[in-house]
């Protein structure tokens, strides 16, 4: 039975490696921080991780389709500045709702712009979204040149402190996202996505609407970025046009750690979710391990590099054996 190989395992359960990594990270974190599973600690961690989790989901969809989206952080910034300026610290919940929808519309529009250039004009994804990231962050700065504004504290507190059945709100959001993904994954569109990411040429010959599928991945990413933007605005309660910028590269790292190859067509969305959580946990481990302050950045980055390299190392060792 040579068929049930490691490759097949990784292909069928792309999150496999990520989950091992997460379990290891959780165990270490638990040893260092015994109260980490307590309701408050769990909630406070998960609400911080949620924005990047949502962002990684969108990034994963683009990457599955064979692309990459450097502009997600810019879209987060746009959403954040829209909410912070239009809702305001004293806004009403109705206003919040209105602008949540406006933000989602903005996210989708931004994604559609990316999709247009990449799918229809056939420009390279990496440099195109790099260019649009300037447009988007610039636009966010245009909306809100100076940090400030925000959303009402009560609304932010709903996000921060809602723990139905004692579980963090983030769990429910992740649950919904994963359910929706599982649904999408099992529709035709889900298959199209993997086909386009795996072999666009073959997909084209099989009459898959390749261009539209590509386009849709960027729209999906724009949509998820908008959700991430809403989440981070709820978390911080304030507006800052640069808020999304550092999140882009983190989302890509989360996707790769989550077992979704940058070459496309392999992986899923659960992996990146796990990857994003793992990245957050690694930060916690560093924090609780009492490593010398000056070494923290180095240690953290090294752990991430090793995590990124691990599948490659395993492959290399397996090759050697064969």
């Amino acid at each position, binding site marked *: 039975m040579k068929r049930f190989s490691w490759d097949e395992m990784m292909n069928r359960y792309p999150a496999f490696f990520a989950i091992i990594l997460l379990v290891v990270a959780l165990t270490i974190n638990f040893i260092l921080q015994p109260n980490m599973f307590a309701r408050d600690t769990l909630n406070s961690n998960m609400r911080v991780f949620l924005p990047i989790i949502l962002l990684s989901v969108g990034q994963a969809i683009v990457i599955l389709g064979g692309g990459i989206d450097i502009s997600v952080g810019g879209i987060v910034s746009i959403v954040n500045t829209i909410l912070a300026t239009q809702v305001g610290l004293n806004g009403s919940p109705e206003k919040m709702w209105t602008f949540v929808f406006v933000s989602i519309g903005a996210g989708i529009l931004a994604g559609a712009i990316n999709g247009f250039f990449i799918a229809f004009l056939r420009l390279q994804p990496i440099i195109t979204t790099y*260019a649009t990231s300037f447009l988007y962050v610039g636009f966010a700065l245009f909306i809100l040149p100076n940090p400030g504004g925000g959303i009402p504290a009560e609304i932010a507190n709903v996000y921060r402190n809602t723990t139905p059945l004692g579980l963090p709100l983030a769990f429910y959001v992740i649950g919904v996202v994963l359910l929706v993904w599982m649904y999408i994954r099992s529709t035709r569109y889900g298959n199209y996505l993997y086909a386009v990411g795996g072999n666009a040429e073959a997909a084209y010959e099989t009459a898959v609407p390749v261009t539209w599928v590509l386009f849709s991945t960027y729209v999906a990413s724009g949509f998820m970025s908008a959700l991430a933007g809403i989440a981070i605005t709820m978390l911080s309660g304030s507006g800052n046009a640069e808020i999304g910028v550092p999140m882009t590269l983190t989302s890509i790292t989360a996707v790769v750690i989550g077992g979704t190859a940058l070459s496309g067509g392999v992986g899923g969305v659960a992996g990146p979710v796990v990857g994003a959580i793992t990245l957050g946990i690694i930060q916690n481990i560093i924090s609780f391990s009492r490593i010398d302050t000056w070494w923290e950045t180095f240690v953290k980055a090294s752990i991430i590099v090793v995590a990124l390299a691990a599948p490659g190392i395993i492959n290399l060792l397996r090759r050697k054996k064969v």
Partner: protein
Amino acid sequence: MRKFSISPPVAAILLAIVLFLLSGFLPNGYGSDINVAIAQATNIVRLAVFLGVIAAGQTLVIISGFEGIDLSAGSVVTLTAILTYVTVKGEDDKVLLALLISLVVGALIGFVNGLGITFLKISPFVMTLGMSGVVTGLIIIINHGNVSGKVAPIMTRLIARPLSPDIPIPNAIIIWIIFGFLMWLLLERSTFGKHLFAIGVNRVTAKLSGVNVTATNLAVYTLAGALAGFGGFLVVGNTGVVFIALGQPFLFPSIAAVAVGGTLLSGGKGSYWGTMAGAIVLTLITSLLTTMQMPDSVRRMVLGATLLVMISIYGRQRGFRQ
């Protein structure tokens, strides 16, 4: 019937000239004063030098294909700048040693990038991104004691000052021209350069024509690291001081300069002259927008739009239907 076509570096230079001429008409432009115009032009080119040198390594890895990119360049610049600073300690005769250290340290980091990319098959994007974090960690470890050092007078003399009081051409520009010539030698007049283009176009053809693909790929990342190291040495010679955030602002412009200069982002085609032109265009646009008193938001949007236009002109990929 031949289609009218123009090579990207020439297009970039023309764009730069047109932009510069237009800038004269701006309220804060040089107006009709030819001396001011020359001073301004010289200054812009001088400023472009540092970006241009840092983008040299980027040019090489992008030419090498397979989604080659070096996201660690920014942090390598900072690291080697700091190493130069502490090594030289204001003494002229330590300058060569510092240069050597910069090159070797940069090369080492690049070599590790290369190992991960060629042997562990980690995507260049992710590998160099991870490495950037590791190098930043190293910088903090080195820097926390508040580095103590000084650049040597000879460095300032050779990098930051004009050739002589009578010839107001900054030495940096002369260094750049020599550097550009060496890069040209490397790319167009050396076996390595020819092999580099070959692996960027088609690695199978390259291998079957006797090119050692693995070694070339490893060498190009090593060299890119060394060039970023050289960039750090130059930058500190210009600023005269070091600080932790010295190199990072150069990173994304270095990729943009390569793209604007017409190097094919999918690899196999490009030139360093193009990158030089790209660096000038980017510096010029930035400086123009500054002179125009544009807010940061507009600046970024204009930069993004420029990039988008440039890649729309010569960054298209082949469609599925032939």
